[in-house]
C-alpha cells in the first residue's frame, strides 16, 4: 500500500514538472513564433529603447532558454528577484511573474479569483453528485419504467445543451421573468453566507444540470452492470434483504468508477469554469483567463494554466489514494 501511494505521489510531482516545462515552453515560443519581442509585449510599443532594455534585463529575457526555465522554476519554488541594477523587485514563491496589462503579480491576482471559482465548483459539485447519482440509481432500479425513460431523456437534454444556452435561458426565466432568484453575484462566504449562497444558486443549478445529466447516465450504466454481476446474485441467494443488496453490495462497486470521473471533473472545474463564469459574470479564474486571452496577457494565461494543472494533478492523486482504500484489488499493484 505504501509503495502504491509513494509511486502515485512521485508521479504527480513529475507530471507537474512536465506541465511547467510545457507552459514555459509556450511562454518562450509564442513571442518568437508571432515575431514579437516579449519585452515589448510587456512594456508596450511606445516605450523608449532604454526602458525596453531595462525590462529585458529585469526579466532575464536575453538569457539562454535553460537559464530562463531554471529561474522560472526557482521562482515557483522559492521566489525570485527581478533585478536591473539597483531596481530590484522581489516576487515571493510561487512566482508566476507579472501581468502584462495590470503590472500586478500574477499569483496574488489569481488567488483573489480562486474563492469565486472554488465556491462555484464545490457548490455545483455537491448538487450534481446528489442529483445525478440518486436519479441514476433510481433509474437503474426502475429500468425501463416511465420514470427511467423520463430521467434519461432529461439527462440527454442536459448533456446536449451547451451551458451558454442553459445559463442564459435560466437567467432570463428565473431572474428576469419570474424574478425568483437574484442575479448571480459573488459575495465572499465569510461576509455573508446567505447572500453567498443565494447569489450563486443560479450558476450552481445551471452547472449542476449539465454534470448531473452525465452522472445520471454514468451511474445508471454502472449500476445496471453491477446488478448483473454474480456477486449480487450470491448476496440475494444468501437471503439478504433487497435494501442491503442494493445499498451495501451494489452501490459500493457501482459507484466506485464515478470517483475517477468526479476527480477529473472537479479538477478541471477548479481551474476555471470559463463559460459559466462568463455567462453569469462571476469574476473567477475562468473569467480572468478569458480576459487574459483576449488581451494576450501571457503571464496570466500561464498562471491560470499552472493552477488548473495543479488542481487536476492533485485531485487525481487523491482519487488514486481513495481507490487504494476502496478497491482491495488495486492495492497489490
Amino acid at each position, binding site marked *: 500500500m505504501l*509503495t502504491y501511494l*509513494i*509511486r502515485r505521489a*512521485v508521479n504527480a510531482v513529475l507530471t507537474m514538472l512536465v506541465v511547467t516545462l510545457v507552459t514555459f515552453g509556450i511562454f518562450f515560443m509564442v513571442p518568437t513564433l508571432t515575431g514579437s519581442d516579449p519585452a515589448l509585449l510587456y512594456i508596450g510599443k511606445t516605450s523608449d529603447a532604454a526602458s525596453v532594455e531595462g525590462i529585458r534585463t529585469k526579466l532575464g529575457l536575453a538569457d539562454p532558454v535553460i537559464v530562463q526555465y531554471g529561474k522560472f522554476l526557482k521562482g515557483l519554488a522559492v521566489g525570485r528577484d527581478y533585478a536591473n541594477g539597483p531596481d530590484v523587485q522581489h516576487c515571493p514563491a510561487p512566482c508566476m511573474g507579472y501581468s502584462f496589462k495590470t503590472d500586478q503579480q500574477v499569483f496574488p491576482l489569481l488567488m483573489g479569483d480562486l474563492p469565486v471559482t472554488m465556491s462555484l465548483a464545490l457548490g455545483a459539485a455537491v448538487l450534481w453528485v446528489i442529483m445525478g447519482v440518486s436519479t441514476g440509481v433510481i433509474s437503474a432500479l426502475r429500468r425501463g419504467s416511465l420514470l427511467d425513460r423520463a430521467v434519461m431523456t432529461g439527462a440527454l437534454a442536459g448533456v446536449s445543451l451547451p451551458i451558454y444556452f442553459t445559463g442564459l435561458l435560466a437567467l432570463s426565466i428565473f431572474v428576469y421573468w419570474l424574478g425568483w432568484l437574484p442575479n448571480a453575484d459573488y459575495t465572499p462566504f465569510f461576509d455573508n453566507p446567505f447572500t453567498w449562497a443565494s447569489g450563486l444558486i443560479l450558476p450552481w443549478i445551471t452547472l449542476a444540470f449539465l454534470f448531473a445529466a452525465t452522472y445520471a447516465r454514468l451511474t445508471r450504466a454502472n449500476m445496471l452492470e453491477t446488478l448483473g454481476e454474480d456477486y449480487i446474485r450470491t448476496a440475494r441467494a444468501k437471503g439478504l434483504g433487497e435494501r442491503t443488496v442494493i445499498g451495501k453490495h451494489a452501490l459500493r462497486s457501482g459507484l466506485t468508477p464515478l470517483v475517477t470521473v468526479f476527480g477529473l471533473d472537479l479538477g478541471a472545474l477548479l481551474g476555471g469554469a470559463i463559460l459559466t463564469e462568463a455567462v453569469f459574470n462571476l469574476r473567477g479564474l475562468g473569467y480572468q483567463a478569458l480576459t487574459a486571452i483576449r488581451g494576450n496577457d501571457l503571464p496570466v494565461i500561464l498562471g491560470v494554466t499552472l493552477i488548473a494543472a495543479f488542481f487536476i494533478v492533485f485531485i487525481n492523486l487523491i482519487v488514486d489514494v481513495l481507490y487504494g482504500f476502496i478497491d482491495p484489488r488495486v492495492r497489490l499493484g
Partner: protein
Amino acid sequence: MHRSEDPVKGQKSMTDVAQRENLLEVTGLQKHFPITKGLLRRQVGAVRAVDGIDVAVRQGETLGLVGESGCGKSTAGRLFTRILEPTGGKIVFEGEDVSHLNTKQMRPLRRDVQMIFQDPYSSLNPRHTVGSIIAAPLQIQKIPTPKGVKVAVQDLLKLVGLNPEHYNRYPHEFSGGQRQRIGIARALALRPKLIVADEPVSALDVSIQAQVVNLLDDLQREFDLTYVFIAHDLSVVRHISDRVAVMYLGKIVEIADRNELYKNPRHPYTVALMSAVPVPDPSRRDRAQRERVLLTGDVPSPINPPSGCRFRTRCWKAQDICATEEPPLVPRLADPESHQTACHFPVSEEEIVVGRSPAGTSA
C-alpha cells in the same frame, strides 16, 4: 500420407510418423515473466511459466499437451507459434531457428504456423464480418486468390461446415460452436503446416465438442496437418492425439504414445490426473472413489517452484532425493524409447490398484 488402415482403430502406424521429419523441435525452452516490485520496479523474481522443455512434433502427428492451470501449456503453445518470444532455449521450425526472429522476419513463417483459440466469443473481433475475419490472413500475407478473395473465403466456410452465404454476418449472429468453426477457417486460410489449438473445445457444449473434434480430425486427414492440441480434458486429448505430453509447473513430466500413456502412466502426477477424471458410469462409482488418488493442497507457485522435482510437495512417493535432484525425462521401468518419465520413483502396474494417498483425503 494419410492414416494407414491400421487394425488398431485407425491410428496412424507409428513407423509412418516416425519416419517423418520433425516439423517443430524445441530444446530447453523457457519463458519467464518478470515480476517487479517496489518504487523503482526492480525485478524481484519471475513467473517461470515454461521452465525448460524439450519436445519435438513430427509432421502429420497430433501432439496432445495436457496439464492443469498454471502448468504452462498455454504459454508453451504461444511460444510454438512465436506469439511470445522465449527467454531461454531454442525453437526450431523445419530446421530453422526461429527463437528470436523479429516481426518482419517472422511474417513469412506465420503462413506455416497458425493458432486456434479457446474462447470463441473473444477470439473473433465483433466489429468485423466473418468474411473479413477469414480474409484477413490472406490479405495480410498477400496470398494470390485466382478466383478472388470472396470465393476463397466461401470455400473455407464450406470446408468447416458453415453456410457460405453467411459471409457478411457478424460473429454474434453465430453460436459458440459455429464461431469456433470460424476460428478454424481463419487458421486454415493460409494452409499452414502446423496448427496449435489451445483448448479449442473446452468452451463448447458436449454435443458440439464432438462435432468440432470430428471436423479437426477430417481436416487433418485432408490437408495433412500437424496439430499441437492443448487441453485439460484428458478424455478429449486421448481421443485425438497420437502422442501425449503431461506438463506440471512449467516442465514436461511425462510423454508417451497415446495408448501407452493411458495404459501405463508412470508419473505419479499423471496417475493422479487420470484417476481424478470422473467416469460416466455409476456402477464404477465406489471403485473409482477407492482408487482415486487425491492430491493434497494446491499447485505451488510458478514463481518459486520446489527444488529438485517440482511435484514432490504433493507426491505420495517423494523421498529425499526428490528434493535434491531433478529427475531427467528418460524412459523408465523398461518402457519403450518413446515413453519418457521425469520421476525417480515411477509408478509400476501393480501400484495403480492401491487406494488413496497415505496423506488421506484432501487437506
